């Protein structure tokens, strides 16, 4: 794991494999990284907003659980973004297939399930809170 992290911070190592591609491919890869990073930042921002703007919820500490879950998901998205960027850059330089990833599907499922759970929580409050 430390070897992988060391590689992210070592651009010379990444630049030593394969051939330097058309710079537009590298720029597109970088923009994809930035888009994922902003997705992570949006989740972090959502967690911070949930912690301070949500009213008290029916289950104790549910607000805190939602906030921490969003914050950790945001951090995970950011880390995965740089890892995927490095693997894609390597693949482009070596002329290989771009790395496949299950991450978008997993993230979509997590966000979908989380949203459904919140719908249940809101309905519980609407029915029970009268």
């Amino acid at each position, binding site marked *: 794991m430390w070897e992988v992290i060391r590689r992210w911070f070592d651009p010379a190592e990444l630049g030593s494999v394969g051939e330097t591609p058309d710079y537009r491919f590298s720029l597109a890869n970088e923009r994809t990284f930035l888009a994922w990073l902003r997705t992570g*930042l*949006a989740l*972090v921002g959502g967690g911070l*907003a949930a912690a301070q703007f949500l009213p008290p919820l029916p289950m104790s500490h549910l607000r805190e659980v939602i906030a921490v879950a969003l914050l*950790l998901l945001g951090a995970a998205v950011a880390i995965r973004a740089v890892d995927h960027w490095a693997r894609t850059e390597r693949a482009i330089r070596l002329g290989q297939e771009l790395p496949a990833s299950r991450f978008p599907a997993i993230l979509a499922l997590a966000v979908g399930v989380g949203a459904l759970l919140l719908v249940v929580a809101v309905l519980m409050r609407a029915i029970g809170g009268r």
Partner: protein
Amino acid sequence: MSTGRDPGLQPERTRLAWRRTLLAVTVVTVLAVRLASTGDPTGALIAGGAVLVWGALLVLCWPRGTGTGPARTGGRTLPLVTAGTVVLALLGVLLVLRGLW
């Protein structure tokens, strides 16, 4: 594949993406400082940490979002910006957990 016009747009789009990212970082920092501002020393310390991370990300992202001509790609800036985002998330976790005690 290559036309005369495309190469000029790619660096520009990438610069704009860096600016949007810096904007998102700023919004997250403002939210973190607001959540931390409860008047106690721990909150002030975490708020200070968030502002420091914001300053570091500002220094990192600004050169990538400005200028004309060919854009730089890759480098250590990407993992460093990721690290800053992770630190902001962890400061947020500290803030939420602090509210439980």
